[in-house]
């Protein structure tokens, strides 16, 4: 039973790893810089493993999610700043995901984009209202495994494996112009943000409470965070690597959300295309639901309201109204006509600015013996946690200048 639970948790993490921002930025990074940014994906994945494991451990031991304990630890004023900043970043991200799903549905059916955005949002609302939490998490996560067609596509195009592996070693390509160096820095920051999105830890920690995790689940937590995210990142690296081989030489950036699906269509034909589009649909849909629920969790936990999908919607009314309102607000943003790729860029920049505020309370709580008792951060977790936190600070400080100087990577 626990093996099944573990396997499902890992598969869900794999299927749910990629969202619209990763789809866009992995493809663009591969096209522009070949395999040279793979090491950034690897390092960011280790970072999300570290913080993901911490957030699951905090939820299992303190029995309170991060936002609950964060207000007590940081105080009302700073807690409110974190809440507002992360709420806005998650809202933009949710809008980007809904826009991405609408585009995928349009590519599959030919139906109008705005209509598909509305249809997608109604589908998400119905899913969250009707399905129990475990089904919500697992259905989209497991169906997101259609994305594995990209891993198969990578194998099928016979990449230079040695060069690909070389990309996993930290380096900056030699001979880059000043402009390209800035763009390299921008994509590095964007990939860190896309892999370590704050909504992932909020959702993971609240999900652990929804699933009633306790000390006996710490093993599952650790394995899910490590193995699930590692395998998920292989999927993301596949997108980058295929783009390096297929799009880079053709001068493709790519600028259209549907272009990554060509990565599976070229080796496998229409079957590959349809599997890729299905995978994109479920993976991005899962991300839309996660970002929305992450906002509802954060708001309700901050004000101490009832929350969670482990109870019927009418038993946690303010929580239900919150996630309905977040979906509605995200849909309105999409209906204004802002391009999903543009929204994904805003989401990535907004999120990296918020990351230091997001992860500081988690680090402090996970190391606090008053809440965590014998399960507080040990030497390894402390070293890795604070090390990655320093990296996040550097990325957050560099994000906005790099975005402006490179026109969002366009130069």
């Amino acid at each position: 039973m626990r093996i099944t639970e573990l396997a499902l948790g890992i598969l869900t993490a794999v299927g749910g790893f990629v969202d619209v921002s990763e789809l866009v930025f992995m493809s663009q990074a591969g096209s522009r810089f070949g395999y040279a940014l793979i090491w950034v994906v690897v390092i960011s994945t280790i970072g999300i493993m570290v913080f993901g494991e911490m957030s699951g451990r905090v939820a299992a031991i303190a029995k309170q999610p991060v936002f609950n304990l964060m207000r007590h630890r940081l105080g009302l004023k700073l807690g409110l700043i974190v809440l507002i900043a992360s709420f806005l970043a998650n809202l933009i991200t949710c809008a980007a995901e809904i826009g991405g799903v609408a585009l995928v549905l349009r590519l599959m059916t030919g139906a109008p984009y705005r209509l598909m955005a509305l249809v997608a949002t109604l589908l998400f609302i119905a899913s969250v209202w009707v399905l129990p939490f475990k089904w919500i998490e697992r259905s989209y996560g497991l169906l997101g495994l259609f994305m594995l067609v990209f891993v198969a596509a990578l194998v099928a195009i016979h990449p230079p494996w040695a060069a690909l592996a070389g990309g996993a070693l930290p380096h900056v390509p030699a001979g880059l112009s000043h402009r390209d160096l800035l763009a390299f820095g921008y994509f590095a920051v964007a990939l860190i943000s896309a892999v370590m999105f704050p909504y992932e830890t909020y959702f993971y920690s609240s999900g652990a409470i929804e699933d009633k995790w306790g000390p006996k689940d710490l093993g599952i937590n650790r394995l899910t965070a490590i193995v699930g995210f590692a395998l998920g990142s292989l999927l993301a690296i596949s997108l980058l690597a295929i783009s390096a081989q297929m799009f880079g030489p053709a001068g493709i950036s790519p600028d259209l959300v549907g272009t990554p699906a060509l990565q599976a269509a070229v080796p496998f034909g229409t079957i590959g295309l349809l599997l890729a589009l299905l995978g994109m649909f479920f993976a991005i849909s899962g991300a839309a639901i996660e970002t929305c629920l992450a906002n509802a969790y954060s708001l309700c936990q901050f004000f101490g309201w009832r929350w969670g999908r482990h109870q019927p919607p009418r038993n946690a009314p303010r929580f239900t109204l919150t996630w309905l309102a977040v979906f509605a607000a995200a849909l309105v943003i999409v209906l204004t006509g802002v391009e999903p790729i543009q929204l994904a860029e805003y989401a990535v920049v907004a999120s990296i600015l918020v990351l230091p505020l997001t992860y500081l309370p988690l680090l402090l709580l996970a190391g606090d013996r008053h809440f965590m008792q014998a399960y507080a951060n040990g030497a390894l977790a402390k070293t890795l946690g604070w090390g990655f936190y320093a990296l996040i600070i550097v990325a957050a400080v560099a994000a906005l200048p790099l975005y402006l100087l490179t026109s969002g990577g366009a130069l």
Partner: protein
Amino acid sequence: MKPDGRLTLIAQLRDLQIVDAEGMHCGIVDDVALAGKPGGVLRIEALLVGPGGYAKRLPGWCRALVRLVAGNGCVKVPWREVESITSVVKLRHEAAALGLDRGEARARRWLPAIGALK
């Protein structure tokens, strides 16, 4: 920590989650009401829950915004209603008996009575 144990700082109590006798979340300790005269015994009179409780802790320009968005409602939970304090404040009675469920009741009126799968 039990209420008859040592509570050394109001900060230990403020911003803790409140759960009622049934374990349902019903607010956060937004502030604490004290009673007593200078030079005499100062004791906790009640927990303050709601925007009327936390708005005072924010800068002046924020208070008007909070009042506009959330109102200035505040529920006073008498200190005798507190059963225990650990990482949460546990109450002796249900939220409804203490007036802590009004927000949820108001929100529920907006929701349709459509069931969900268990």
